[in-house]
């Protein structure tokens, strides 16, 4: 569209009038709501503003990935909750992808029973509500034996109705340097790898892209060794009625993780199936004809082409999983919604501020996923193969 004057861009007189009406309506609505809120908040004696973020929270949170004491501030509570949300989201994304990929490939497999099994799973998982699934998994997690008769092996892991006890890596000494050095090595390695690949594609010569990967791994190991092995391992031991050491995964986390993986896995399976079916049949047949076996054909020919169809909806499934992790509140896993839109809201009474912050967090996640999708679509459009 040619860029005309202001009037033209605004769609002429009619367009300007319609948009003016919308703006006026929104402004009037905002003024009205603001007036109501002002009166109501004053009448109920609720504080306003974000001063509460600096005040002491005063309640305990069972699971915290960073140090947390009840004497810490609400800002710290927000951080702890956000990290717990991210933890369960990342765990869920990994396992739901594995489940979804397996079930998706099984749904198009040549084996009838494999198809039947995968179809049954998909139709059960995506046609029942996630809250109910979470409650079912939580109930299952509580059926594990009590600590006294725990399943497991001393020094390795224990499975009980109070949670799963696992070995934990401890960071000490120069760990920070090792981590940052390792990250720097990996980033540099990835750049090298993509640089080599580009050279090969454009000039047909040059080093193998694998050297980039070797650099990344080598650099990581070197950073680890140079800083003098800064990790220790902390294993769980039975002691008296409970356990000491290791990392405890609460039943709520287990249940939420299982439910999110199981539920989202079914949607991912359908995306994977759609992606595989979108690849022209001749591609698979041609791959077989040049001598690749079934697994190679899938990995080297079909999946790379299917990925273009798979990735955009997959990204929005990951986003859905992250949003759905907010259902943690029904079984008491301390995610962002539970600790901030739940406990903190109740204690401070500042519903508008706490909810706004929580929503902003999810919006930020969603915007970054959209940004990634735009980048991916632009990138994959370059080598899009027409069918």
């Amino acid at each position, binding site marked *: 569209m040619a860029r005309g004057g202001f009037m033209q861009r605004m769609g002429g007189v009619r367009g300007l009038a319609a948009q003016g009406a919308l703006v006026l309506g929104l402004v009037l609505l905002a003024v009205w709501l603001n007036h109501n809120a002002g009166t109501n908040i004053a009448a109920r004696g609720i504080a306003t503003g974000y001063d509460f973020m600096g005040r002491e929270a005063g309640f305990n949170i069972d699971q915290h990935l960073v140090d947390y004491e009840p004497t810490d501030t609400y800002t710290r509570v927000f951080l702890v909750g956000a990290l717990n949300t991210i933890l369960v989201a990342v765990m869920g994304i990994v396992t739901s992808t594995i489940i979804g990929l397996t079930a998706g490939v099984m749904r198009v497999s040549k084996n009838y029973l*494999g198809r039947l099994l995968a179809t049954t799973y998909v139709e059960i998982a995506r046609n*029942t509500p996630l809250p109910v*699934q979470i409650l079912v998994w939580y109930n299952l997690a509580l059926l594990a034996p009590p600590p006294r008769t725990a399943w497991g092996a001393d020094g390795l892991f224990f499975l009980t109705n109070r949670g799963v006890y696992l070995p934990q890596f401890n960071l000490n000494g120069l760990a920070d340097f090792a981590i940052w050095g390792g990250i720097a090595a990996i980033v540099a390695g990835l750049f090298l790898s993509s640089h080599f690949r580009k050279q090969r594609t454009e000039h047909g010569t040059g080093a193998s892209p694998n050297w980039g990967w070797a650099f990344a791994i080598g650099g990581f190991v070197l950073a680890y060794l140079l800083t003098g092995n800064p990790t220790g391992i902390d294993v769980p031991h039975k002691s008296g009625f409970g356990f000491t050491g290791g990392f405890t995964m609460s039943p709520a986390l287990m249940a939420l993780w299982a439910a999110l993986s199981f539920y989202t896995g079914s949607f991912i399976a359908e995306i994977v199936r759609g992606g595989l079916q979108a690849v022209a049949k001749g591609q698979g047949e041609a791959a077989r004809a040049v001598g690749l076996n079934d697994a190679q054909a899938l990995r080297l020919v079909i999946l790379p082409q299917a990925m273009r169809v798979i990735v955009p909806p997959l990204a929005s499934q990951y986003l859905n999983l992250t949003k*759905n992790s907010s259902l943690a509140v029904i079984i008491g896993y301390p995610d962002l919604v539970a600790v901030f839109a739940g406990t903190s809201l109740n204690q401070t009474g500042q*519903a508008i501020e706490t*909810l706004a912050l929580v929503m902003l967090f999810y919006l930020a996640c969603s915007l970054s996923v959209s940004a990634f999708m735009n980048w991916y679509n632009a990138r994959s459009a370059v080598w899009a193969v027409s069918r």
Partner: protein
Amino acid sequence: MSAARPAPTTTAWQWARLNLFGSIADSVLTVVAAVLFAWFVWNAFDWAILRADWFGETKEACKSGGACWAMITARWQQVVAGYYPEAHLWRVALAMVCLAIAVLPVIKRDMPAWAALLAPAGVIASIAVLGGANILPSVPTDYWGGIMLNVLVGLTGAIFALPIGILLAFGRRSDLPIIKGFSIGFIEIVRGVPLITLLFMSSVVLPLFLPTGMNLDKLMRALAVVTLFSSAYMAEAVRGGLAAVPKGQREASHSLGLGLLQTTGLVVLPQAIRISIPAIVNTFIGLFKDTSLLYVIAILEVTGVIRQALSDFAWLGLENEGYVFVAFVFWVACFSMSRWSASLEQQSGKTVKRVEEPA
């Protein structure tokens, strides 16, 4: 032309060779899958049907070791309608009839255009029948509940969300920058946050924004929020349909002398809606499943009723039965709707992947 080649006949053995025992790995998978499947189906059948107890006053009545469905049968009335007064249960039935009429224009596709008005009319009528509307004795929404409430909230949300969603979808495709910006902003913000935060908003923030003295009922506030929430998803469903209407349709309509409003209302929209019905149904399935969240803000839909039963001493420890029952109710509804939606897709020849659902 020569006669068509007869379809190749495959014997059961050939079929099994191809579909079950194609290779060694396949054969192993087949055996493992068959054992797993048989084990699972048999155990489920044995527990849920063969060894189940169906009636009784407390869990003591369940002695055979299988599922104890007595909890569901004993509380049947609450499961269906919550604490709606027994003498007025006929109103629940009548409300369900109204809702059935409301979805008629979606199911029967050869109805005249005015039939679309049946949808909002049916929903309003059902709420009026349930609430009393100053004609029948009033029944406050605190007494509404059970599966009836899931259906009511799901359908109300979807039906009122659709027109808003259509407007938003047009807004998003519009050339007018402010309208377009507003539509995109609304859709993306609503789709970017979890429903539960919006439900919390309906229960704690919304009352703050209403004029002092105006007490909107808890259920009505939730309905308003659910409607706005699903309108963003409906907008995306309709947008797909709008994009699928060929440009020539619009041009042909203009050349016949129809104006912008007539072209949109008589030519573009009917086709777009028809194309997007499967996507709309899929959005509805997601919304219907989401109604199970309402118990978090103390609205007694079926999950809430079951959780209340589970906290009753008489039925303590029957979580398996309770949750399996709720899951089964939703499964029957959602599975049949998804089959129906898939058959609509096949009729229209367009595939709408059921991968985007409200979350």
